[in-house]
């Protein structure tokens, strides 16, 4: 597969720039605080820290007396070595270790929810566009816009209240219960699934509408193309025209949108985690903010951003597979 290689390299270049921007943002953020960042940071958390913690903190931030460019280069070096510093709250656990546990849970919850909402949303969009003016098409858009208007975290609160608190159908917090042993055993896995359903439903509820509306609108455009009329004239079955001809082509913008939407979904998933006390990156982020654990906070921002960049890159790779034009473009 040498076709599309040029395109892939272009994208890699772009993501490297994006990664560099986010690392630099991470460097600038603490220095955005009004006044002298070092003393401000320390005064905010004074009394909570032992001297060695303060030293570690200073070191991580490069808040020594060296000039900014030197600090910046030191910071870049540390990040490249995967050294995100030491968590203040969980002293002396390295930030990277703390994040690793959270990342696992977020990936589980996020991937499940995103895949379900993508498939479901696009399917609804296809049906709505195919039977334009039918009941799916009349009921779906306003309903989806309405549900999509709710903040993720509020819908999460509602789900938690109705299904967890009132109906007691699902557990209301954490990723697994107290009475199961962590490991690869059936009771544990079942428990994890039970704990994931409610937060996942929340994310699916809010994010499905966007896919459905986008798909409907692109599909309507595609349906007026000549090759659809041609397919119909050939006497192909409706199902084949619908999925093999129309939906297949209408899916391209949805795949592109997938990468962009991912950022929003990640944000929403973070808030959902907080409501459900689900031990993923979002919950960790809030705890870090509450504990003024600045290294952990920044490490989380960096990891979340990089994860989204990687996901976007994977989407780009899929795009090359799906859209032959990209490959032809690269060949010329």
């Amino acid at each position, binding site marked *: 597969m040498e076709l599309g290689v040029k*395109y892939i390299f272009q994208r890699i270049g*772009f993501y490297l*720039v*994006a990664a560099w*921007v986010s690392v630099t*943002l991470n460097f600038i*953020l603490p220095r*955005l*605080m009004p006044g002298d960042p070092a003393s401000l940071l320390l005064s905010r958390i004074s009394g909570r820290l032992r001297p060695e913690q303060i030293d570690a903190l200073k070191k991580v931030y490069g808040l020594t007396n060296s000039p900014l460019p030197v600090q910046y280069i030191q910071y870049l070096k540390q990040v490249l070595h995967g050294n995100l510093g030491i968590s203040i709250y969980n002293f002396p656990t390295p930030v990277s270790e703390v994040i690793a546990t959270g990342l696992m849970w977020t990936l589980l919850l996020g991937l499940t929810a995103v895949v379900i909402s993508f498939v479901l949303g696009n399917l609804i969009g296809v049906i709505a566009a195919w*039977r*334009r*003016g*039918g009941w799916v*098409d009349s009921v779906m*858009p*306003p309903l989806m*816009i*309405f549900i999509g*208007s*709710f*903040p*993720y*975290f*509020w819908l999460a*609160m*509602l789900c*938690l209240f109705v299904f967890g*608190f009132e109906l007691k159908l699902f557990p*209301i917090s954490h990723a697994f219960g107290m009475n199961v042993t962590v490991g690869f055993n059936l009771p544990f896995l079942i428990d994890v699934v039970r704990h994931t359903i409610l937060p996942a439903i929340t994310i699916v509820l809010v994010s499905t509408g966007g896919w459905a*509306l*986008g798909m409907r*609108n*692109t599909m*309507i*455009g595609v349906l*007026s193309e000549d090759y*659809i*009329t041609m397919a*119909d004239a050939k006497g192909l079955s409706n199902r084949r025209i619908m999925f093999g001809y129309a939906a297949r082509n209408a899916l391209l*913008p949805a795949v*592109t949108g997938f990468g*962009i939407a*991912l*950022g*929003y979904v990640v*944000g*929403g998933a*973070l*808030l959902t985690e907080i*409501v459900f006390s689900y031990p993923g990156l979002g919950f960790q982020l*809030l705890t870090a*903010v*509450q504990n003024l654990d600045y290294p952990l*906070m920044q490490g989380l*921002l960096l990891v*979340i*951003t990089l994860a*989204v960049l990687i996901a976007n890159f994977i989407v*780009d790779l899929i795009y090359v597979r799906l859209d032959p*034009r990209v490959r032809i473009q690269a060949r010329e």
Partner: protein
Amino acid sequence: MEANEPRIPGVTAPSVKTRPDNNNIGLPHPKYPLRDLIRKLTQNKKVVAGGTILVAMVFVVAFAPLIAPGDPMAFVAQANQPPSAEHLLGTSGQGQDVFVQLIRGSRVSLLTGVFVGLIATILGIIVGMTAGYFGGAVDNILSVVMNVFLVIPGLPLLVVLAAFLPRTPATIVLVLGLTGWPGTARVLRAQTLSVRTKEYVSAAIVGGESIFRVIFAEILPNMASIVASSLLGGIAFGIVAEAGLEFLGLGDTSRVSWGTILYWAQNNAGLLTGAWWTFLPPGLCIALAAFSLTLINYSVDEITNPALRSQRSGGAILRKLYLRSRATPVVPNEK
């Protein structure tokens, strides 16, 4: 829509086709485009519904102290009392009147949204149109900046930013405004690129008009619908995102807004004590505000893009024949 915008440089987007002017034969050309648009808007059910909700909310914001007098932070009764005649929406976990808080909090929530929308849209216009108008290296650099900020997830960045900066409503407005612009910029860039090649723009340039005038007086008015839709979307984003940040306790928690009501509801375990009145109303208000804005937004899109309008006329037979009827479009396909 931005979904149609090509991500791969070089591959032309089917959506940004320039409309040949002679295609308009048979369609009455509106004499007053703005008046015509307003007439279409007021005839649209969705716009009327969304507009009514919006006007009602503006009314509440304007007369909040009259509708719900009293100090929203005052402890007026026992904590977590269910709704009663005296306290229409019960009391919060700290014994405050939820109804008073809800009405008085609308001001911070909605104004934040408006300011966020304005800042994001203005930034989007400046960056997007500069990139689209000048093209070349300027466009390349600005496009990379836009795409980088589009791809970096917003919420974690907002949370960390808000954690580092002083906790005031102004901070939240600035943080949200400064992160909300790339989507608008991208759409406007694509549109500017296509409008830039129109004859009247060339005429204006040749006529010796300043770049500033060409961009803002010649090109910008042609993107009124995109700007309007960006502004509406920006306001909705601002309202929801502000609530999110406040909910996390990153705002000024001593100030009443819909977000802080939710923050206190969560922190005082309003959920686990069954005090639904502490978190249902603010969430519904946020959703209602965002819903009305989105409703108007989609309708503007529908009105300016006839291809999206759902066809309601005709029965089952027509729908069955639908595939064939599509082959001979009556209206020239604009999208």
